[in-house]
């Protein structure tokens, strides 16, 4: 019993304290999640130590992995929980990259500019949400894409920001390349871990339960007092902050910013791909999806068009055979690494 109480996260609003009703307890963790804590910490420690073990091209690849992971996780919460199928998250990816560029041009250290850029994207997302939230379903998807294109067109009109051809990111001359590579890697890792923890804690909270209800049936959710619009707006802002941070890291890792790249719709395709093959509406899905996507990319990139054909084929096969993605297959065996649910435990079966 004490073990169960200590397992409860401090950030959790629903305590494990015995209820007034017949000594029933509410448990939030699962067997597989308790078993996974130690390995997860080891993986995190190894990832943090990686720059000391491998050459810089490995860490550069991993930076791209983390960027995609952050985009996948935020898109999953957007589309998988809030029902906001955005095809325009690259708007915030680009805005994040250009914010870091602009702040660096004003003399700020690009790494220090990262959090500022992320918050800026969250602020920009507020007026954008007023606009795109008037649209539903497919119109929302196209609307968000159009917003991203507008962002790109507005940006390339500024010659100071490099116009259409892009420009180099200043302010990094003080770092030697190895240190810069390691710092960029750690920044990307930190953003990925924060995104994962943030999504996890949010989905475990009241807002998360309300969002899960919205995911299953938004009309019925409203009928039990959920205000879907409010919950969706929160998710949209958080996803913009995540995409903005990812864009900032992208700028620093590439050392230059170019509109076609950072505002490119291919980012939306990558996000959707990793979430769909991993498992939409689960926290674990985008992680699995990003790993699979990266393995495909790394092993097949030299085969040109075959790589795209195979990636497309995988997506089609998953959509047909496992709509809940690869993680949907794992969940059939009762595996949950990030349990966001609740389990009622009666006193007599508290050992289970």
């Amino acid at each position: 019993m004490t073990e169960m109480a200590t397992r409860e996260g401090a950030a959790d609003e629903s305590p494990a304290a015995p209820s007034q009703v017949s000594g029933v307890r509410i448990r939030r963790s699962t067997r597989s999640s308790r078993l996974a804590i130690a390995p997860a910490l080891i993986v995190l420690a190894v990832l943090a130590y990686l720059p000391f073990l491998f050459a810089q091209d490995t860490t550069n690849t991993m930076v791209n992995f983390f960027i995609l992971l952050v985009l996948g996780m935020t898109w999953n919460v957007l589309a998988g929980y809030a029902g906001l199928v955005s095809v325009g998250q690259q708007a915030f990816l680009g805005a994040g990259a250009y914010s870091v560029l602009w702040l660096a041009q004003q003399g700020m250290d690009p790494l220090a500019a990262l959090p500022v850029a992320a918050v800026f994207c969250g602020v920009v997302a507020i007026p954008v949400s007023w606009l795109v939230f008037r649209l539903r379903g497919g119109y929302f998807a196209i609307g968000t894409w159009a917003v991203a294109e507008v962002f790109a067109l507005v940006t390339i009109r500024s010659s100071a920001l490099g116009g259409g051809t892009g420009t180099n990111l200043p302010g990094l001359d003080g770092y030697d390349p190895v240190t810069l590579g390691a710092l960029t890697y750690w920044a990307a890792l930190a953003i990925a871990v924060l995104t994962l923890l943030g999504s996890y804690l949010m989905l475990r909270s009241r807002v998360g339960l309300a969002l899960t209800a919205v995911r299953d049936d938004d009309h019925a959710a409203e009928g039990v007092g959920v205000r879907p619009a409010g919950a969706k707006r929160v998710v949209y802002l958080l996803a913009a902050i995540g995409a903005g941070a990812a864009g900032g890291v992208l700028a620093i890792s590439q050392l230059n910013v170019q509109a076609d790249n950072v505002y490119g719709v291919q980012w939306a395709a990558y996000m959707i791909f990793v979430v769909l093959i991993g498992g939409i509406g689960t926290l674990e899905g985008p992680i699995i999806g990003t790993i699979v996507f990266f393995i495909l990319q790394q092993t097949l990139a030299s085969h040109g068009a075959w790589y795209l054909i195979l990636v497309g084929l995988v997506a089609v096969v998953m959509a047909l055979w496992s709509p809940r993605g690869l993680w949907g297959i794992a969940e059939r065996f009762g595996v949950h690494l990030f349990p966001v649910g609740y389990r009622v435990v009666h006193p007599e079966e508290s050992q289970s």
Partner: protein
Amino acid sequence: MTTERLLELDAVSKRFGRVVVADGLSFGVRQGETLGIVGPNGAGKTSLFGMISGDLRVDTGDIRLSGTSLTSLSTARRVRSGVVRTHQVPRPFTGMTVFENVLVAAQQGGGLRASHAVDRTLEVIEETGLAEHANVVSGRLGLLSRKRLEVARALACGPRLLLLDEVAGGLTDPEVDTLVSIVRGVNARGVTVLWIEHVVRALVSTVDRLVCLALGSLVAEGKPSEVLARPEVKQIFLGTGAAVDEAPGGLP
């Protein structure tokens, strides 16, 4: 007749194109009573619930709860002020367990925090006979349990007025009795109940008063036995009259 009116409909009208679902409808629901609503398909019963719960906007007229107009409030606001409906076809949050389904209602509709929400959830699950299914993912429930869950979720919101839309439909007789006893218990706790039902037996055994609707208008209102004895109501239920033949069917 001096009892306070909890809900009041004042000349409520609503039409979808040429189909009239409410035609100057006026009646009241008294604090603490159970009022049954009967009528043929297309009489506007479910649409009426939609207008009271906020899913549908009224064209003209007013709906008041304890004298305060509801018509401009969102569904979520109405739930928080105590007007909660169940759905004719249960709409569980299929990926969530029974406990989670009810908990979200206790937290959002009931406005309860932390352990208070958990306690309310456990009480309601007990009251509706779902205790043994608490950890079952609701998408796997059978019809009776889904109907129970509809009621449980509504109760967790702490309703003053509970709108039941055919909770007994599609169930066997013993199952109907189970739900009737749940509804009686809820009403005994002081919750006012407005109940649409085609299973007239269940309704008559429970309600204090009955309202009969047809084509968006009030046909009869009064004690259940009196209402069902009226010739115009009999005509509707025996299905012989022109009123039934003209009634548009299959409306939400």
